[in-house]
């Protein structure tokens, strides 16, 4: 009978908190959006599922050994944790606080105390440490994306890089918005958090995860969910902005056929880009280095088996772990917060500003080139969200001129946007983390 009560007292049904119930519904909502509405399912299925796992009461899958020890709060273990962390209070909350602010040696001592108490890291916590804590997973995804990216359209018309630059304005405007809201007291973001939120406007999942894991890991759940959700919403978010900012005549501009790009140019491009990164912004080297490496494997033609693996088995394996790891940050105590609402709102603002900036830049360039060279509809593709944004440009273009295929022209700014947001990421890591 005693055991039955024990079992009940340890069951999820008895222990579940309101927050966990809400977050399980959030996880189910993400699964619904991914499966039924096809919102970036490769990421949102693992993220949503990981979010549910992270909120299973008493299982502690998303927690470190020390957090799990603090949850159960056995007095002796609290005592040895307090001793390890050099604090006098044995209150679990203060212990967790001290743990997060401890020196590396205290950190290790606290872990030892928790292990001695019989607690262990949860499965998702381990996945997070290996995949995201090490920064390996977003970099490997970027390598795979590089191996999937064809820079041909960009090389045929390098000026589309300007569009990829302009669209990053959404990132920085949002940073300003976030600190502005904090200045007037509506929200409470520091500059690191503001930078991580801004990167949602980069419309590039791995970049957002990489930057956030370095600058504001506690916001990773909200930022990753926002980034992938809004990317999935590109076909809804962008068209009204595109229509509002362009004239009918502009939307009908037919662009010149792209010139043929040689294999050698494609092989040299990732090397040129890498060397520029090395010379100008070393902080972007991990992201763009892996991206260029993937692209070089693709284009060089002599390591096809490596390129295939980078695009398939490896990126799939990493995606599974990355998604579950992001999901581990959807635990109620980390996600259910006014900040999350702020992040979701600012994120969509970032997207809209980026889209608008890309289109306005395209209009400007078109004007400067005589008014008939660039269809401004391809400017919105500069936010990246490859290849969705380019497809949206194509679709809107076809609505106004059924003979005008903009897809290839939009692929240029589209991949330029990937480079642009990685550069923006490097700048922010440089200025904000140090």
């Amino acid at each position: 009978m005693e055991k039955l009560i024990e079992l009940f007292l340890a069951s999820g049904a008895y222990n579940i908190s309101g927050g966990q119930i809400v977050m399980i519904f959030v996880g189910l909502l993400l699964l619904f959006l991914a499966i039924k509405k096809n919102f970036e399912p490769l990421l949102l299925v693992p993220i949503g599922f990981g979010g549910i796992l992270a909120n299973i009461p008493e299982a502690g899958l998303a927690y470190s050994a020390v957090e799990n020890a603090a949850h159960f709060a056995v007095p002796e273990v609290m005592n040895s944790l307090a001793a390890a962390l050099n604090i006098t209070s044995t209150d679990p909350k203060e212990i967790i606080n001290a743990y997060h602010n401890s020196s590396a040696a205290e950190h290790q001592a606290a872990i030892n105390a928790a292990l001695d108490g019989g607690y262990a890291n949860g499965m998702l916590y381990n996945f997070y440490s290996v995949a995201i804590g090490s920064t390996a997973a977003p970099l490997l995804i970027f390598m795979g994306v590089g191996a999937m990216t064809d820079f041909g359209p960009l090389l045929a018309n390098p000026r589309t890089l300007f569009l990829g630059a302009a669209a990053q304005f959404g990132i920085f405007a949002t940073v300003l918005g976030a600190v502005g809201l904090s200045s007037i007291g509506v929200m409470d973001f520091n500059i690191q958090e503001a930078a991580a939120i801004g990167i949602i406007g980069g419309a590039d999942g791995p970049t957002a995860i990489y930057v956030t894991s370095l600058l504001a890991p506690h916001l990773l759940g909200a930022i990753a969910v926002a980034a992938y959700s809004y990317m999935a919403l590109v076909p809804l978010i962008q068209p009204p902005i595109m229509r509002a900012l362009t004239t009918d005549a502009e939307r009908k501009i037919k662009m010149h056929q792209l010139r043929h790009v040689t294999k050698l140019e494609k092989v040299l491009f990732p090397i040129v880009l890498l060397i520029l990164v090395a010379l100008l912004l070393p902080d972007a080297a991990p992201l763009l280095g892996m991206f260029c490496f993937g692209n070089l494997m693709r284009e060089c033609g002599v390591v096809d088996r490596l390129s295939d693996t980078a695009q398939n088995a490896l990126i799939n394996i990493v995606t599974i772990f990355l998604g579950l790891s992001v999901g581990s940050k959807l635990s109620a105590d980390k996600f259910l917060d006014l900040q999350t609402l702020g992040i979701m709102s600012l994120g969509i603002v970032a997207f809209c500003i980026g889209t608008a900036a890309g289109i306005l830049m395209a209009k400007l360039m078109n004007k400067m080139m005589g008014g008939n060279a660039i269809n401004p509809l391809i400017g919105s593709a500069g936010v990246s969200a490859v290849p969705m944004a380019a497809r949206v440009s194509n679709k809107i273009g076809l609505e106004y001129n059924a003979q005008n295929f903009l897809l290839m022209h939009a692929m240029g700014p589209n991949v330029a946007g990937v480079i642009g947001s990685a550069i923006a990421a490097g700048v922010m890591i440089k200025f904000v983390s140090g």
Partner: protein
Amino acid sequence: MDNLLSDGLELMVFGMGFVAVFLTVLVFATTGMSAVVGKYFPEEPAQPKAKKKAAPAADNDDELVAVMTAAVHKYRS
């Protein structure tokens, strides 16, 4: 708080500026690279074949396997 705002403003100006400068440099570098390639290393017309030559290692291995398989069959038949 003012400090935070000025940090944000500074980040915007320098960040956006740097992105613009970097991609502008990249436009020039790419254009220059393409010009050099076009001038000194123009692609031969028969491009599809060039592609096939690109992976001689694999080809050689395939050939090797073919030879070995043929040899094995011969010795066994």
